[in-house]
């Protein structure tokens, strides 16, 4: 039994990294823009579909362009719709982005059809790796590597580059950033595009694991919200810790009480919210007070 528990925890951590990648884009969008983006899952699905299409047109190498392309779509959406939500009631952003999610899903269905698209991992990543009781597929190892690399790159970008500093400063004190002569609207457009590109990266990586279908966004958006709520709205560190915790809790629930697996992450969220309503790493943000 110990072997099985160890195996499930390891599997949960890998699954957790997928959740982290889905959630971190959502967290960034909220943290930097103050917008609760319910369409995040739709951008995740769009990433998977762009990857499928690019693969069919140009082969595997082209798949890497799916996230930046979705990022561009996100920037266009920000410039036309999301921009109008800044500083408004959070409920308004929820309603508008929910409508946006439905619209994107309808566009996906209209463009690619209601049926799913077969999409498997590249042959180089087929097969499994076993270490004692642990079993992990080569593709999941690759997902783990890609996720960690993306998260480290994102952290370095936000922490060490001038653009990252402007983004962070803009999220805390937009007036001051504008007074310094920085074109804040353009910065916010880029930030929303970054969040969408991260959702799309998760979609690309999940495409060989989950069925690529218009409804795949539903599988992504709820765990992402739970992870962000547990980790603390806008907290990068919180999204990582919460994502891994959610992955492990789901895996262990499947081991001992499988019919409760879907509810387990909500129970975890409920418990954390009771103890710490701002989430594990949630901070006081003046502009949201």
């Amino acid at each position, binding site marked *: 039994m110990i072997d099985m528990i160890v195996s499930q925890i390891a599997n949960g951590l890998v699954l957790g990294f997928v959740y982290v990648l889905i959630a971190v884009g959502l967290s960034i969008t909220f943290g930097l823009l103050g917008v609760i983006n319910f369409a995040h899952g739709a951008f995740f699905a769009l990433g998977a579909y762009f990857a499928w299409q690019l693969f069919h047109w140009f082969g595997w190498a082209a798949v890497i362009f799916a996230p930046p392309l979705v990022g561009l779509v996100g920037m266009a959406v920000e410039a036309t719709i999301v921009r109008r939500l800044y500083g408004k009631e959070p409920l308004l952003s929820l309603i508008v982005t929910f409508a946006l999610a439905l619209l994107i899903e309808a566009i996906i269905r209209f463009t690619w059809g209601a049926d799913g698209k077969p999409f*498997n991992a590249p042959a180089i990543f087929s097969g499994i790796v076993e270490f004692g009781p642990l079993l992990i597929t080569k593709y999941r190892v690759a997902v783990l590597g890609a996720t960690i690399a993306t998260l480290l790159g994102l952290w370095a970008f936000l922490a060490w580059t001038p653009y990252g500093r402007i983004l962070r400063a803009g999220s805390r004190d937009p007036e001051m950033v504008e007074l310094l002569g920085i074109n804040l609207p353009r910065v916010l457009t880029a930030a929303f595009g970054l969040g969408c590109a991260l959702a799309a990266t998760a979609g690309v990586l999940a495409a060989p694991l989950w069925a690529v279908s218009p409804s795949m966004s539903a599988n992504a958006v709820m765990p992402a919200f739970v992870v962000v709520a547990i980790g603390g709205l806008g907290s990068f560190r919180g999204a990582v810790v919460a994502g891994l915790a959610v992955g492990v809790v789901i895996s262990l629930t499947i081991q001992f009480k499988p019919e409760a697996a879907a509810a387990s992450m909500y129970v975890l969220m409920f418990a954390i919210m009771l103890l710490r309503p701002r989430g594990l790493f949630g901070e006081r943000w003046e502009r949201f007070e």
Partner: protein
Amino acid sequence: MIGIQRDKRSFLRLVTGAATMATIGWASAVAAEETGPIRIGLIYSKQGPGAAIGEFLQRGSALAVEQAGGKVLGRPIELVWLDEPNPQVSQQNMQRLIDENKVVAVVGGNYSSSALAMMSVANREKIPLILTGAAAREITGKECSRYTFRTQATVPVQIAGLMPYVAELGKKIYFITPSYAFGQDILRSARGMLPAIGGTEAGVDEVPVNTADYSSYILKIRQAKPDAVIGGLVGGDFSNFLKQWNEMGMKGKIPYAAVAVTDTDFWDVGPQASTGIFIKPWYYNNPNNTPAEKKMTADFVAKYGAPPSDKAWSGWIGMRALLESIEAAKSTKSADIVTALETWKNTEGSFPFYFRSWDHQMVRPAVIVQVKRTITDKWDFFDFLKNTSDTAADTEKAFGTKDEIGCSMPAL
């Protein structure tokens, strides 16, 4: 005095005029009811993991209308399609179809949980409902209704067809089923039949609907080392499972068998991930298909550029049965349609199939298929093995006796 008389005359003229207008309005409404379009409701998924299934069901139903020349009783048919996202909304949509769209009957209900919710409305409003996908036994069992008919073979019938094949694979059986009425019925039926094949239970997982990642379930199955897995996952959930079953190297190692699958589950994941033995209502490339079914396949391919899935067939046969019954009844009154459906019979195959009058279950064998070793065609994934029964008597017997089914059919 003269003024009062004039007022009386004006009032009488007004009343007469209003009465005439009302009579004309009523007469034209009656005329429209008798000559206007006949509305039929469809409740199939438009979104979520069942969207592809819903699309095929709708296409099948629409094709049946088209093949009927778009008319029944000489009047045009108008289809109104609403969504089947969950039991609550499906039930509300059923009510909307009746109250707002004034449909004469409804075809739909792919999920047992939604179907059971829709049945209560059909029963209360006395509107015929033909269920085209739901398989849980209670629909035509203890919850049976005079206004509900069902095309899909019940879970016990499908499991009984599957078990002899499972017995050939081994004795230790693992179950992975969805955690709602349909999945619970699979468990109940298969557990009841395990002793007959000398089987034992290696493990059971009841999986919540809309599960994306099955890796932890697959680890459990791998650890339990069963001889075979019996499943009942549906739609996108099943596609996710198949994909990850293959990804985790289980394809070809532990055989997988399931009931009530549909072609789109496999088309969605492609040949690489497809594996197993399955029970389906129908298969487009079955050499035993009737001429009408072959024509439906040809018409479907011509219209949509792809063959019909078994769901398209279910939507098609449900609508056909309804239209033929309305024609036979020469009426759109609910009681007349129900009576006609109870005597409706299709005689195009080697033996007839029909809705059994005492439980409203379509008595027709399902097909047993196996994923081909090598799939070369984009759509043709299966080898047809056999029907779940081969004679009219065996089919009737497979669907159970009155005592076994437990339906007390209420009066009209």
